């Protein structure tokens, strides 16, 4: 009873038309493109064994590339292509969201269609091919009037498989900026909103099942020469497409797009900014769950309008700086670097979300550890865990170098799971985030960094080039600048992660709190 009265169900349902519509659009476009590519290829390869082997092998290899990686690879590729086309033809295109997703998913859909088309055509008996020739058909007539119609059930089965794969994999297009049912899953995982995760998975599964069943009607109809079933399946497909595309046709207003990376604090901040823009009567859409390398490029190329990043991250990742410099110099340096990309640094929010080495209070007391320097002697007996990217970031190299650390083992895990892991002594040390509410929840301690090996990570609001002079946007966001202190941010993050409170509620709480209290101390 209490499970169903959870307000997050209604929240999830409210997003469904948008997420589902986008999901179907991107899957459909990918499937159509995949078919347009693989059907002619299969026909071409039919009587050419070498080409056939090459095609099938390439398609198989593509299939073994993890979906997320394939999608992520298309983003930089298209970005480079867009830059080239801009230079040569003066015509750029958006490498963000829809296009890379469609291309990657289309590639993904090709194997079953290629394989089944080739198999289906090869399955047409030699006697029937000869009969087709014998009654006076040209090779082309034999193909279109006899071979393809006879292979159609098998081809249709391939299309069915491809459709199910594409619908499933499309959930992974969220990090490259394509809204999909994956938005539920990515947001849910980060904010420990299991209702969202469940909702996203079930919605994607139901969509895949329905599409599969509708296409199955066509396939069975073709197989058993039952025109009614073929017609029923075709009508079902059209209805499904119409139903999910309909909402997209109505409101075509140009809204402000706010981006967010894939962790709780970002979801809270994007909700907070969206609330401010709505309060100022500005239309707004959220693009959450973006990969951390995708999001900056998306802003610089005007695909999103605003998002929050962290000074140290920009410094090290975007501008490839490995030197550690004082806070004031980083901010000045950033402004210069950002200006080169025409990105505006609107201001600091007032808190810092730095990387920090974190231990459980009990374990730290046992070992007598207060600062990272104390770990030097102990590290060879300890294991450390971090998120998926930290150990390949320059900060990690800087820490190892500054303190001469060598841990017995290092593990990568989903950032939310690090805190309970260190609390349960599964690992000894984790690389946490200073603004994370889970530090307080699990009674963990942040180790000091006396050598300042870890750069500052002040949260900064960035505006896209085209929003540089947008005073409405600047004014809507101004009340947030310099107002959010670390304690308030931690509390909001904690509220948004797994306490049954929605991200929107946590953002509202944060807004109320920073208005009630004094401006954050700087």
């Amino acid at each position, binding site marked *: 009873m209490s499970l169903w009265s959870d307000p997050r169900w209604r929240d999830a349902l409210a997003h469904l038309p948008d997420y589902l519509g986008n999901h179907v659009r991107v899957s459909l476009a990918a499937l159509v493109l995949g078919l347009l590519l693989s059907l002619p290829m299969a026909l071409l390869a039919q009587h050419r064994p070498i080409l056939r082997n090459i095609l099938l092998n390439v398609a198989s290899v593509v299939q073994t590339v993890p979906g997320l990686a394939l999608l992520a690879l298309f983003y930089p590729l298209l970005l480079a292509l867009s830059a080239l086309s801009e230079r040569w033809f003066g015509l750029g295109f958006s490498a963000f969201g829809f296009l890379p997703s469609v291309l990657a998913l289309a590639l993904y859909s090709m194997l079953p269609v290629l394989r089944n088309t080739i198999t289906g055509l090869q399955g047409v008996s030699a*006697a*029937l091919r*000869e*009969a087709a020739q*014998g*009654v*006076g*058909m040209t090779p082309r007539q034999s193909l279109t009037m006899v071979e393809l119609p006879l292979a159609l059930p098998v081809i249709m089965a391939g299309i069915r498989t491809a459709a199910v794969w594409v619908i499933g994999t499309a959930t992974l297009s969220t990090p490259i900026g394509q809204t999909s049912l994956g938005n539920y899953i990515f947001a849910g995982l980060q904010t420990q909103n299991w209702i969202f995760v469940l909702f996203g998975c079930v919605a994607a599964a139901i969509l895949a099942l329905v599409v599969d069943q509708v296409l199955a009607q066509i396939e069975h109809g073709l197989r058993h020469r039952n025109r009614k079933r073929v017609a029923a399946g075709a009508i079902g497909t059209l209805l499904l497409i119409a139903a999910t595309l309909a909402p997209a046709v109505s409101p075509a207003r140009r809204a402000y797009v706010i981006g967010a990376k894939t962790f709780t604090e970002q979801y809270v901040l994007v909700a907070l900014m969206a609330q401010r823009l709505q309060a100022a009567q500005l239309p707004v859409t959220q693009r959450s769950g973006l990969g951390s390398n995708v999001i900056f490029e998306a802003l610089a190329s005007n695909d999103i309008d605003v998002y929050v990043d962290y000074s140290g991250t920009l410094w090290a990742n975007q501008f490839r700086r490995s030197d550690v410099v004082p806070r004031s110099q980083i901010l000045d340096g950033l402004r210069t670097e950002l200006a080169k990309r025409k990105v505006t640094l609107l201001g600091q929010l007032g808190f810092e979300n730095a990387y920090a080495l974190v231990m459980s209070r009990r374990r730290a007391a046992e070992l007598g550890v207060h600062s990272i320097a104390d770990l030097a002697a102990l590290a060879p007996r300890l294991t450390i865990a971090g998120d998926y990217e930290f150990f390949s970031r320059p900060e990690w190299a800087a820490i190892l170098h500054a303190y001469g650390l060598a841990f017995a083992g290092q593990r990568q895990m989903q950032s939310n799971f690090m805190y309970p892991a260190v609390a349960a002594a599964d690992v000894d040390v984790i690389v946490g985030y200073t603004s994370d509410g889970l530090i307080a929840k699990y009674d963990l301690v942040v180790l000091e960094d006396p050598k300042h090996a870890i750069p500052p990570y002040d949260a900064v609001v960035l505006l896209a080039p085209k929003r540089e002079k947008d005073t409405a946007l600047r004014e809507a966001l101004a009340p947030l600048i310099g107002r959010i202190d670390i304690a308030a941010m931690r509390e909001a993050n904690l509220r948004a992660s797994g306490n049954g409170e929605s991200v929107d509620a946590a953002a509202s709480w944060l807004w109320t709190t920073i208005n009630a209290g004094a401006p954050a101390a700087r």
Partner: protein
Amino acid sequence: MNVATPLIAFEQVGKHFGGHRGDRPVLAVADVSLNIASGEFLAIVGASGSGKTTLLRLANRLLVPDHGTIRIEGVDISTADPVALRRRIGTVFQNGGLFPHMTVAGNIGITPRLLGWNQHDIAVRVEELMTLVQLDPGAHRDRFPHELSGGQRQRVGVARALAARPHIVLMDEPFGALDPLTRDALGKDYHSLHRDLGLTTVMITHDMAEAIMLADRIAVMSEGRLIAQGSATDLARSGSGEVQALLQTPRRQAAQLQQLLPQDDNS
């Protein structure tokens, strides 16, 4: 056209298969010369692998000979457009060769459709042919091949071959897979069509009895060679042991049947 010119003429035709990448080439047809007159019903008999099907395929250019010439109405077919050639020759395939995704009407009307006849003419022709091969158009027109009996399928096969009003019909063991009663009836029915429509028919069969009963003339093939040709009477006089053995089988069967079956007046 000169009356003496045969309708179909094979002139020292040879064909072998394989032979690339070190495979030993397999001889299919060797040095066959054979004339078929207009209006004639020729049966080609021989054991499996004797080259009789190859000979038939050469006639409508489903295969191209290695050497020799094939003429139809005096014209060398290697100079003709193979697709146009096949559209004016009717072919009945083993087991029907019907297209499983097309209805009976669709199958029968296929060659006229390829020739660009209009819908109405095709429909009229299909109706006419179904009556000709004794299939009820109302009951069978819209059925699919898998809904028909073997005999009905082969009647559709014959109708399809005749659809574009060909003068020549090639038949590849057309009745081989049918039960004896159906086979007998279909053979007789086709024979009257052959006579009434003035067709020239080349039929492949491995059944000497069928050949004797239907054909004007029989050509006997063995290991790719034409070893004898002529009427049943001519063949009976042949000195070839192989031909005698072939003729022996129906005789022996007839004699055995005579002994085994109760006489009509005994019952």
